[in-house]
């Protein structure tokens, strides 16, 4: 499988810098964003296999960012990583379409596992879309 592409969104710059460096050392391609608006801009320009998103941020918070990201790209695999991990927030995040809700501090091994799962799911969804498109063309042509 190709190198996974990850967007890490966190307003704690030192956290994002250290975690991004650790992920790059594990052969991931990582971009970082300090806030929801910057993250949305990046999502419009690049297809990421996984988004690691903080919940409490200035401006757009994690849940608002999640909503807007999924409006832009419904197949995005968004993992919420937060210090505010309450059951209510977790349920809300999953209802909105997050694939995981993890608590800070999180082990790098766990994050890597979730990113790999996200990449597999993302690849599968892309393949499904291609298959749907082909089936649609075949159907329209009557083949």
């Amino acid at each position, binding site marked *: 499988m190709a190198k996974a592409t990850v967007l890490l969104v966190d307003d704690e710059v030192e956290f994002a810098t250290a975690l991004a460096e650790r992920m790059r050392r594990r052969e991931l391609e990582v971009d970082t964003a300090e806030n929801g608006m910057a993250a949305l801009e990046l999502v419009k320009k690049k297809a990421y296999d996984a988004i690691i998103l903080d919940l*409490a941020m200035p401006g757009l918070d994690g849940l608002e960012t999640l909503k807007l990201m999924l409006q832009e790209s419904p197949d995005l695999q968004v993992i919420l990583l937060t210090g505010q991990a309450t059951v209510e927030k977790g349920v*809300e995040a999953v209802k909105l379409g997050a694939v995981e809700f993890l608590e800070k501090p999180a082990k790098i091994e766990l994050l890597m596992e979730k990113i790999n799962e996200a990449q597999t799911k993302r690849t599968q969804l892309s393949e499904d879309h291609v298959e749907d498109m082909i089936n649609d063309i075949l159907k329209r042509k009557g083949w």
Partner: protein
Amino acid sequence: MTDSPRGSRPLSVPEEPIAFFGAVTAATTHDLNNVISIIDQTAGLLEDLVFAAENGSSIEIEQLSRVSESIQRQTRRGIATIKRLNRFAHTTDEPTLEFELNETLENLLVLVQRLADRREVDLKVTPRHEPIKLTASPFLIQHAIFAVYASLLRVSEAGTELSVSVSGGAAAAVVTFDLGSASGASPDLTVAQSLAESVGMRLETESGVDTLTVTLYIENGP
């Protein structure tokens, strides 16, 4: 009382003292969790560098130095936050005691600054140069101050400045909140008013074209 001025971020104006204590503790421990998470990832990066070195890669001294500085910086941040939280917790020690208003106010507002940060409100605190010693319940006075702070944040717009200043003297102190521009909605100061009155403070509001000023007058105790 809960409001959600921007999306999914509620901000409560706590009526009960225990809820106020909870609000301050929640904001502070969230910050401490961030500090620990940074140290955790940075220490993990250090471990990765050691692992790489054991497997033949060279270690860049500059990178090691950056990692070490980050850990030290975050440790200092964590210690400062814990000291402030400890100072806040001790304001409940006695129903009435002598305390210095500038120090108490600044300590509280630093602890809850993240509430302003999340709303992209620029909080500025201007203490009075000379100390103002009051004899009262520092905890209940902070509760009233926090109620004004939270009420104003609920109607603040992103990019607004909220300035808090202290003036007055030994007989009576004055805490003034100036909000650069409100969202158009008037803040609901019912809880703040009631809390202020319960500790003998007077609360006044004054609206300008684009500004809002809330003043708390604190009479000094016997």
